[in-house]
């Protein structure tokens, strides 16, 4: 197997794939979204539970049901673990940094202080076909956020 492959399927990815954190759909939630990747048919249902409002909005819970490859399942697991218990404002730079690194084709190194286990996913940045897999949960989070905020405003 080539080096590339091991940089993609890191032990951390395999671990999250096998024992995903915060998986399953829970109540209560402020918004639920369902996203599909039409190319491969992967799906994620994601629920977001927000409390508070404005600058102090807190992510109480993120629960999800994901059908997808190891990369996308690990990405969902890692994301949920990053989000839960943080504020929306706090997470914005995390999301932005992660998306920038994933879109950089490997040119941008990930900052572990910001994205934690997310660095283990960055091997995918060099595999353009896999970037979508990794970003899918984040797109779902963003959509759920927009929906939650629309409901609360």
């Amino acid at each position, binding site marked *: 197997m*080539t080096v590339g492959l091991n940089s993609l*399927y890191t032990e951390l990815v395999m671990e999250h794939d096998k024992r995903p954190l915060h998986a399953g759909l829970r109540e209560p939630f402020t918004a639920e979204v369902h996203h599909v990747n039409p190319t491969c048919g992967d799906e994620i249902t994601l629920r977001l539970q927000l409390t508070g409002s404005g600058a102090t909005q807190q992510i109480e819970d993120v629960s999800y049901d994901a059908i997808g*490859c190891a990369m996308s399942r690990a990405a969902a697991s890692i994301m949920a673990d990053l989000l839960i218990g943080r504020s929306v404002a706090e997470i914005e730079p995390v999301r932005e940094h992660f998306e920038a690194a994933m879109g950089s084709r490997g040119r941008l190194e990930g900052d572990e202080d910001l994205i934690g286990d997310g660095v283990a996913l960055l091997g995918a940045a060099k*595999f353009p076909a896999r970037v979508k897999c990794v970003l899918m949960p984040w797109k779902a989070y963003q959509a759920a956020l927009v929906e939650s905020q629309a409901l609360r405003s």
Partner: protein
Amino acid sequence: MNSPSRAFDIQAIRADFPILERMLDPETPMIYLDGGATSQRPRQVLDAEVAFLTRDNAAVKRGAHRMASAATDAYEQARETVAAFVGAPSPDEVVFTKNATEALNLVAYSLGNGDPSTPPALRVGEGDEILVTEMEHHANLVPWQELARRTGATLRWIPMADDFTLDLSDLDALIGARTKVVAFTHQSNVLGTINPVDRLVEAARAVGALTVLDAAQSAPHMPFDVAALGVDFAVLSGHKMLGPTGIGVLWGRYEHLAAMPPFLTGGSMIEVVHLDHSTYAEPPARFEAGTPPISQAVGLAAACDYLTALGMETIAEHERALTDQAVRGLSEIDGVRIIGPSVGPHRAGAVSFDLAGRHPHDVGQVLDSLGIEVRVGHHCAWPLHRRFGLHGTTRASFSVHTTADEVEAFVAGVARTTDFFGGLS
């Protein structure tokens, strides 16, 4: 290891395909097993297009100058070559489209575009039924869904049997007096299943329904003859038969084409244009609006010539042997479930499988790291996958240039994939 077919010099064939020399990285030669998605092109096809473009390129059918005549000759000669390739009684039955998908849309839209002067058999409306199958590629499913939606017709489908062939036990109930169209694939792009065209044609004819054959996967890989098949329409895809992208083929019986309203409209398909109304040219011009894929037609004709020179029966044999080898090899790997019928004459060279529920993206990624380019996902046949409880499969598909060594490498690669994921668990 030798090529499975004797009359077939596989090394000479490979030398015709410049891309086969490509390395994916300095250590990894490419093993291209994705001809079912798009084929590679032999030199002969590339050269034919460049020769045309550096010598005879001009707009076709619109000019009187010598360049326009040369270009028109090349384009119409290509139509004759394609007509001969598919066994069409006349080149006027061959319409060039942009791909197989457009060809299917052309038929579906035209059948909804008629007015009271259109023969009823060529007009789908409220209360009519369109019959497809559960194994169709989206290209031969969604246009019919949309036709049904636009016209108020009803879409029905022939279900799959558990053995990966069509379940025809209820055919009599599915085809009836209301059935206007029966659209089905000749060969499944996922399963490799070759459908019983004669039975479906017979049932459709009995009720006066039109048959539309999706031959995108069959025509490049076996002897193909629309006259013998007895269908009313057939569609082909240039880029799946060693030809260029940007070109597809609709073959239709002339009597139908001559009575059908146009689909795309514009230049070159008209008879007389007034500001407020127009009349339309005879087929095939009626269905070729705007500047057609000219150099692509020349390339496609070169592809037909290339295939014909090898012999379609020889090609089919070659690929059958590779399919047997792949199916046998995969069957010995723990956790592999082949999604397709057992080998035999009704089974062609697309070998899809599931690997212990492992997501096909992950399987494909490991194979790609070994240089083995296979397709993963639902292969534009989502309902078929749903039917078998799958989100996707991994598919290898074989071409004229595929060798037994490559198939062996593929089978070994699948075994290593199991190890890779197994080893880490």
